């Protein structure tokens, strides 16, 4: 009897979907998530294109469904450290980092967070907000269990003193757990590129050059500024430009590919800006507008016609910061001209790249990566299967795709894993 269980690595939308489908089909799933909460990158978004659905509103019930499912075991703060065996019977070692909070006891009241004297930049908010040393990354985190940031903790003991549930555990140690599974699904998503190295954009040097994901936190009502798009000097924005393909479609650093989502992402952010500030002027500087998905062209039409978003073809050669911290963008709209656009904020649609640690994980799993560090496929046109039998891949870590494609992809790999668990198709030619 083979193990009727599947390991899913990564608790973003793709991983959650795969886990949920499998669990619903009666298969046990171990969902391993590196951070404190499942939800992935989608949880960081304010709205989603092309419907402007509120991201967390539609995601949170899905996160709860996943976490509560009787067939899903969610292991947060966990990483796969080793696998043995083969399709049908993998033995997986998982390292669980300590939370320093008793998961069974914490009821998420947040008393610990309120007394903790430490102030630490919150990664979930793209370092734009300070959280305390006892924390959850965001309000809708699942599981709703606090954690202590031990690197920053000075063990003052206040959290322990106020915790009515006696849940603080300063002495928790990392542990290794083992699970036996028939198949593995990798869905570790992406990281946004840090554009500091692309000096022409001035990110890191200029106050008001930010990334699209930072913008997403700013415009989010539950974000660090309560949904106000404000500059470092506290002024609200009036003219704002998005610059596309920052570090993408760019042969420098071996990144010639298109990230597939940024044109629509920028369009959405421009629309949201206009909804917040009807008087604001919004510009999108782009090379090719990639509006190929369902409803995308219509969305762009709305942005242009109803929201007066101005699309300008031209990639900036340079950005300069003025004394008042405004930015001058120099770009060339036709072969014989260079134009200047002045704005008070620049948002960089940075490339989305394979997650940090992908190479180490690929090595542990014994799967190959392609030249851009996306997971390599066994067969072209079949986007589900890695180069190792029984290990499948879902979502952005296989190739750029948007949320619904990631979700379909998550389900797709679930069916491949079902073929193994339910159908017993160990013979890959079956």
């Amino acid at each position, binding site marked *: 009897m083979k193990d009727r269980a599947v390991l899913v690595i990564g608790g973003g*939308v793709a991983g959650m979907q795969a886990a949920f*489908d499998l669990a619903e*089909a*009666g298969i046990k799933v171990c969902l391993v998530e590196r951070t404190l909460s499942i939800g992935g990158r989608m949880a960081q978004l304010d709205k*989603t294109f092309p*419907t402007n*659905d509120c991201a967390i509103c*539609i*995601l949170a019930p899905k996160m*709860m469904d996943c976490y*509560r499912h009787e067939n899903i075991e969610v292991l947060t703060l966990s990483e796969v450290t080793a696998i043995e065996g083969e399709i049908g019977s993998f033995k997986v070692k998982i390292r669980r980092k300590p939370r320093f909070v008793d998961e069974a006891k914490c*009821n*998420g*009241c947040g*008393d610990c967070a309120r007394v903790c004297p430490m102030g630490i930049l919150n990664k979930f908010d793209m370092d734009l907000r300070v959280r305390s040393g006892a924390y959850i990354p965001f309000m809708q985190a699942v599981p*709703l269990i606090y954690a202590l940031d031990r690197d920053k903790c000075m063990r003052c003991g206040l959290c322990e003193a106020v915790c*009515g*549930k006696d849940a603080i555990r300063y002495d928790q140690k990392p542990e290794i757990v083992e699970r036996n599974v028939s198949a593995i699904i990798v869905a570790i998503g992406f990281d946004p590129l840090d554009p500091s190295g692309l000096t022409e954009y001035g990110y890191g040097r200029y106050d008001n050059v930010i990334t699209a994901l930072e913008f997403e936190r700013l415009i989010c009502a539950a974000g660090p500024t309560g949904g106000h798009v404000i500059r470092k000097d506290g002024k609200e924005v009036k003219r704002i430009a998005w610059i596309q393909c920052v570090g993408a479609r760019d042969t420098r650093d071996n990144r*010639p*590919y*298109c990230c597939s989502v940024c044109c629509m992402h920028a369009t959405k952010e421009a629309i949201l800006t206009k909804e917040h500030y009807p008087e604001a002027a919004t510009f999108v500087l782009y090379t*090719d507008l*990639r509006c*190929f*998905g*369902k*409803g*995308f*062209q*219509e969305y762009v*039409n709305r942005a242009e016609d109803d929201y007066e978003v101005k699309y300008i*073809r031209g990639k900036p050669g340079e950005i300069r910061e003025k004394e008042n911290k405004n930015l001058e963008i120099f770009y060339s709209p*036709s*072969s014989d001209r260079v134009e200047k656009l002045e704005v008070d904020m620049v948002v960089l649609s940075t490339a989305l790249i394979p997650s940090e640690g992908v190479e180490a994980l690929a090595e542990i799993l014994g799967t190959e990566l*392609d030249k*851009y560090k*996306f997971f390599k496929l066994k067969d*072209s*046109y*079949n*986007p*589900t299967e890695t180069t190792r039998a029984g290990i499948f891949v879902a979502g952005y870590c296989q*190739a*750029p*795709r948007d*949320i*619904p*494609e990631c*979700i*379909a*992809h998550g*389900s*797709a790999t*679930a*069916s491949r894993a*079902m*073929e193994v668990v*339910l*159908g017993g198709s160990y013979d890959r030619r*079956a």
Partner: protein
Amino acid sequence: MTEELRIGVFICHCGINIGGVVDVPAVVEYASTLENVVHAERNLYTCSSDGLESIKSAINEYELNRVVVASCTPRTHEPLFRATCEEAGLNRYLFEFVNIRDQCSWVHMHELEKATEKAKDLVRMGVAKAALLEPLEELTSEVTPSAVVIGAGISGMTAALSIAKNGFHVHLIEKKREMGGMLRRLYKLYPTEELAAEFLEQRIKAVEEHERVELHLSASIKAVEGYVGKFKVILDENGAEKSIDTGVIIVATGAKEFEPEGLYEYDGEKVITQLQLEEKLKRGDSKLDGIENVVMIQCAGARGEVVGYCSKICCMNAIKNAKLIKEANPDINVFIAHNELQAYGEEYELYYRDAKKAGVRFLRFPLERRPKVIKSEGKLVVDVFHERLQMNIPLEADLVVLSVPLVQNPDAEKLSKMLKVPLGQDKFFFEAHVKLRPVDFATDGIFLCGTAQGPKDIEESISQGYAAASRATIPLAKGYVSSEAIISSVDEAICVGCGICESVCPYGAVEVVETEEGRRAKVTGVKCKGCGTCGSSCIKRAIKMHHFTDEQLIAQERTALVTEEVVS
């Protein structure tokens, strides 16, 4: 209801989260004076194992038949308390949650007295609702363990084969005599440039050889009845009628190429579509003898010209065909006149660069100034306004190829009516949720994949095919479907069969059927999701939305508004 009501109320301090603002002992005392309340107590944390134990023991000790917990929010803790009630032998729906933390103590931190008043009101409202709660059960219904896949193109074949490999019988229905769909007409595939015919052959073989796939070729759907788990699909297969029982249905009917009649001097000979070009190339005519100049026009009929949308695959398809022509015969000039170029994703950008390297020439026109095809004395000129040079460039052409969009099949509307699933404004099948449910329909048990949902390339069609297989396998593997317990029901004595409820239900859960008494609405429990819109729309108020009944909601609001102190 004849049984005596015995309500227990549990009020949580949540440490100081509630207790620091609301006077919990006073609320407990107040609760114990309310009608039907036989027990009230407070807990430091009702959700702790101590708290849960004390609910269970109180249910036994005081013979409670309703439980009210006033604490945090039902959105996180209702399942826990419901389960606790069930463990003590009480139906889980005889539990009522009162939110006095997130919506009281935390938002009125500086108004202690008023917060306490509010907490009392909320508890009183909860008790009033609890008195009217009824036990509910989740309904289950068996599932016929087989699937129907409509359409044997690449996505339908993928879905069918995966479900078969998952261990279930699949009926794969194709209206044509052969499987393969649009792939049959293609020459080579981008970006690998393998032959479409070879690619297809392997996959057709795998489907044909699988023991659990039952093929129905030259077959069309005549009628569909039933609901998730128990569908009946009536087929016309080669003129004979066949009836298939199935648990789930997948729509994989594909799309077709738009016919550009009347546009760009289209004639099917000198001005053709990309698919017509592929067929030419496939016939071995890749050298295109006698042709010196080929001009391809992108977005022909798309993005506002005839249809509104971008068809996703035409740019790459044009680039592929252009590159193949150029490589087979470097003397032919190949131009692609385009607006935006959709070379998205990991591999297409490089493929596009390869085409450029091979000598394919790209000219960008603005969408508001699309190219014109001028035909005179048998000669063709394509007049392209070059965006970057801001001038018109006339290109002589021996062959003009129009990159036209994929459009929905004309028979899709009929199918959508039979299945009671919607088409979108673009006429493609409309999924349950644009973001989160790309291969589901709102109606349980019916799924979609491939270009029936919208234009997409082969890889994505395969991905969706597998995805639909996964979604469809779930009820088959479970063997049953269960409904929400909180669903609506129709009082047939009041219903007049007007059908308003049917029109507002997004799940097809309420339908008007013929009964002995005449036309009456009927709720199919397993389809209902419990939103209650049918109830509030019913013209005779004949529909009861359980657990949120008119009586319960009215009891809550009226109780909230009654100002007299309850006499104990």
